[in-house]
């Protein structure tokens, strides 16, 4: 029987598990959180005593049905609170072949007594998703300045409103549900600021509208958010963003400015807005450490953003390894579900049939949607215009823009060691792509500066190359690894025990 391991139980991963089970595989579904859903279906845990979890969710009924089907399936083993800390190349042991070994820790998040295990598979589906991209600006490290995703996650999972008077800023349609969630939590949303100008957005979304067929489900959702914002008389301003946060120990006001098409600041357009929280997101960054650890090739978008390179069947360059959802391009939950469904079926060795061809069409439609989204809401190349020499870029090590500029001519490894950018607790997850982008600005042509090129046969330098994908305690590393022989067991439904 084919053993399929799915990492991530969000819309893409859950869908992959469902079709892999349908094709007869034995499935191990690994999830870092306590329950499936990912960020899209994030909801309070059962302990919270919530009666109507579906009230704030789109597509909750379908999600819950799929979740219950997968978790109760006799061939499914669900591993919640399980973090993948390494993927080990079986190529290192010539007797083996196939996808990498999956090293996991199970137990309370960052706890000291997690159980360590190694899981083998015949096919691996990576569905680990993305997090907010957030460009630095002066004051972005002040408490009360959070990512747009954080504001929404706190409402969805914790029932906490991050502030009473908030500004939501950045780029992309995701800003609308975030603002709506905050309004639903009783906050006053003072402004929603989309950094891109109307011309860019219209050109990105407007051309060849027939390509958006199949994503029509998104339109009522967007209309609903727009109506909510209108009802609360929230100003939505285009071509303007937050360029600075100020406050004594926490954010008290933000400075907004009008932007040109390249995101340089229009002089004299600055305005201050009193807030107690600022929620900012400039699109999403796929969590590439596991695909990179698996040896999957990446592809680069015209604006420099990187994703896992996959074929039309979601196969990566690494045999037996599939990548789905936001890893392959940012296109939202419906596209992620379609990708998961196709990859799960194929990973399990399911035969080609009309339903599979229909899924391929859905996946292709999702890909076109991703292209539109990227075209309508790009990151303007002149964003470093906001930075000052004393602006923190690496939050963990408090490395400022001036220090990074001074180190710009050095070999990347030398400048990393010298400035310590990317060497703090997050290991470059937040600042890595930003530092790479800043280094590329005004840098000598590739080949002369050591950027992203093979280094004496070693892997390419990449902000995503992280041999230890998640922190592991030395005691856990030293402990013996339990053999992974547990038979699959039905798991009770956590929502309705």
């Amino acid at each position, binding site marked *: 029987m084919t053993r399929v391991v799915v990492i991530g139980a969000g819309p893409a991963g859950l869908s992959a598990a469902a079709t892999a089970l349908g094709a007869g595989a034995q499935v191990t579904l690994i999830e*870092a959180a*306590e329950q499936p859903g990912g*960020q899209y279906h994030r909801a*309070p*845990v*059962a*302990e*919270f*005593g*919530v*009666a*109507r*979890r579906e*009230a*704030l969710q789109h597509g909750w009924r379908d999600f819950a049905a799929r979740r219950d089907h997968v978790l109760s399936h006799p061939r499914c083993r669900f591993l919640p609170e399980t973090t993948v800390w390494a993927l080990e190349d079986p190529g290192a042991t010539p007797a083996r072949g196939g996808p990498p070994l999956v090293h996991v820790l199970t137990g*309370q*998040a*960052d*706890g*000291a007594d997690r159980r360590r295990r190694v899981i083998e598979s015949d096919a691996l589906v990576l569905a680990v998703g993305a*997090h*907010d991209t957030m460009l630095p600006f002066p004051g972005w*490290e*002040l*408490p*009360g*300045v*959070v*990512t747009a*995703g*954080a*504001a929404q*996650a*706190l*409402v969805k*999972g*914790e*029932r*906490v*409103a*991050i*502030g*009473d*008077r908030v500004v939501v800023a950045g780029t992309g349609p995701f800003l609308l549900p975030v603002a709506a969630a905050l309004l*639903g*939590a*009783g906050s006053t949303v003072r402004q929603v600021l989309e950094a891109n100008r109307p011309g860019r957005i219209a050109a990105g979304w407007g051309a060849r509208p027939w390509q958006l067929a199949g994503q029509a489900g998104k339109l009522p959702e967007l209309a609903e958010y727009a109506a909510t914002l209108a009802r609360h008389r929230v100003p939505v301003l285009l071509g303007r963003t937050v360029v600075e946060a100020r406050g004594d*120990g*926490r954010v008290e006001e933000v400075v907004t400015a009008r932007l040109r098409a390249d995101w340089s600041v229009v002089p004299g357009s600055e305005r201050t807005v009193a807030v*107690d*929280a600022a929620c900012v997101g400039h699109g999403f960054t796929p*969590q590439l450490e596991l695909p990179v650890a698996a040896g999957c090739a990446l592809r680069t978008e015209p604006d420099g953003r990187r994703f896992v390179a996959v074929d039309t069947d979601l196969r990566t360059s690494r045999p037996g390894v599939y990548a789905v959802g936001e890893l392959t391009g940012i296109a939202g939950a419906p596209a992620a579900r379609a990708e998961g469904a196709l990859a799960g079926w194929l990973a399990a060795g399911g035969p080609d049939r009309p339903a599979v061809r229909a899924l391929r069409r859905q996946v292709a439609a999702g890909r076109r949607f991703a292209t539109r989204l990227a075209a309508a809401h790009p990151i303007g190349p002149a964003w470093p215009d906001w930075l000052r020499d004393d602006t923190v870029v690496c*939050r*963990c*090590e*408090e490395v400022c823009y001036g220090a990074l500029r001074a180190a710009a001519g050095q070999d990347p490894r030398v400048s990393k060691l010298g400035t310590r950018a990317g060497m703090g*607790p*997050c290991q470059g*997850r*937040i600042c890595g792509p930003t530092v790479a982008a800043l280094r590329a600005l005004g840098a000598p042509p590739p080949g002369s500066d050591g950027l992203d090129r093979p280094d004496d046969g070693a892997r390419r330098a990449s902000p995503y190359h992280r041999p230890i994908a998640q922190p592991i305690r030395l005691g856990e590393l030293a402990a013996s690894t339990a053999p992974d022989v547990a038979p699959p067991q039905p798991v009770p439904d956590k929502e309705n025990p």
Partner: protein
Amino acid sequence: MTPRLIRPDDDVLDRDDRPVTITVDGTPVTGVAGQSIAGVLLAAARTAWRYGHAGAGRGVFCGIGVCFDCLVTVNGVPDVRACRRRARDGDAVTTQTRLPADGDGDR
């Protein structure tokens, strides 16, 4: 006042809250069972609980376990992401600092 818990009476999710009490640097803080430690701290209107090299405060930033800005020590175990760790009754949370005066701080 900010941040804050959505009042149960106003909550469309129809909540039946049960309290969870943790200590933060020895002081009891009560939140709602099911919240993360970050959720409990935010619901108690605390925005910062970790201090950087220069003494500046940090709290929640990414909210989903990516940024490590919200690290705390829980029951003696250091470097726990407050946004990922579910609060359990009686958890003893201590805040972390990277101020040089505090030795190696949280590293």
